[in-house]
């Protein structure tokens, strides 16, 4: 996965991964969706692994704990992929 992904594609991939993991329709997941409202802590932990695999990035536990909404996750991934080292560390 390269850093050439357009933002809209990142958002689509994130929402698709969340919907797939939680077994819900993509339309049920929006940028405003809060992780605490749509999943439990185990789902969220597995989602972080899924994002790491999907975008070939690394998300620390500390960073993950600050991701409250789907938009937070999308923004983090965009920032990380846009950065020089492809990592938030």
């Amino acid at each position, binding site marked *: 996965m390269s850093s050439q992904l357009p933002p809209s594609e990142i958002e689509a991939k994130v929402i698709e991964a969340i919907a797939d*993991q939680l*077994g*819900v329709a993509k339309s049920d997941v929006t940028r405003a969706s809060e992780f605490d409202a749509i999943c439990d*802590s*185990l789902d969220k*932990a*597995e989602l972080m*692994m899924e994002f*790491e695999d999907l975008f070939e990035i690394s998300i620390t536990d500390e960073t993950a704990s600050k991701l409250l909404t789907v938009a937070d996750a999308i923004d983090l991934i965009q920032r990380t992929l846009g950065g020089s080292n492809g990592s938030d560390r």
Partner: protein
Amino acid sequence: MRTVTHRRVVITGIGAVSNIGTTAAATWEAMKNGRSGISPLQSFPQNEDWTVRFAGEIHNFDPSHVVDGREQKRIDRVALFAMVAAHEAVQDCGYDLKNAGDPYRHGTIIGSGIGGVLTMEEGHTKLLQTGPRRVSPFVVPRLMVNAAPGNVSIQFNLRGPSTAVASACASSGHAMGMAMQIIQRGDCDVMLAGGSEAAITPLTLSAFASMKALSTRNDDPTKASRPFDKDRDGFVLSEGAAILVLEELEHAKARGARIYAELVGYGATGDAFHIAAPDEQGSGAFKAMEFALRDAALAPTAVGYINAHGTSTPLGDRAEVTAVKRLFGAHAHTLAMSSTKSMTGHALGAAGGIESIPAIMSIYEGVLAPTINLDHADEGFDLNFVPNTAQTAKVDVALNNTFGFGGHNVSLVFKRFS
């Protein structure tokens, strides 16, 4: 003889998932027809290094009517089996367990010999391949041996005692016996009890094969499980679950429940002999049956049918036949004893649950499920094993034997309700 008066416990619901039926009713129908559930292995690829290439797998298992797709990913096959069987049992008993009564009077005990070993193996493979940060957070809730009762308690809002029993192939027997006692002593009114197993995995199959415990009749899988036959060469690994609704008698009567039979006795012993081999005289099995009948305050002559542990291993079957002949004396030649593992194979910790169905139905329906593949009974095996074809008989008392690695022996006594 009992010195304490117990509350009485009856069976009001039955549920099962097996390789011969997706429900308890279908499983019983297949048993009466002598159908084998053994087939060439499909779960994982095998090369010629594998000495055993068949098993009693459940094909096309679909729990979607009980657990939605999202939840399915969080739950191992072993607990999904239990949840599907519990769903059927509760529907069958006609009591809205989830919403009726005091949830603290409802509980569950579900046995499993091995638990979520498929999850354990897949999780370990992932750890080795991708490192510790990629191990799924669902590994522990999936693999733990108590995942089945944990999930079933959530499924039906059971807030009374909820636990697992792990005593290898005797797990279901212990689960049902202990659940009976919980109702008898007044702690609960309804218990979901039984066992579940889903251990047809590369590690488990190869390990049982290394013990030389399994039949290697690869060229004829449906003939491989042949309890009491002189050509038996080991058991056939299988999987499945069965759950009974155990209910206090007055509770059942008050709601006009259909009663299949009464559970009246539980006997349990340990061989204290060898971790995997049976005591050749079947002393522990003998005592388990004796104690179960004592608990039931019944004489051995009352017993009309025994669902044997009968795994089709050379030593195990001999020990059980020896114990039965010693305990029952001349009556051993009057009663009938069959092994339905001849059809289902050996579902380890689920075996006792699945086999409670033919024990209960021998009383309720008057039909004895056969021991199939019994072409030539072994030397000295001169009992009525219900060879190859079902028989009809009026049975008032039936025993359900389960014995496990570790030297665990359990015998349960079911009795016609009157």
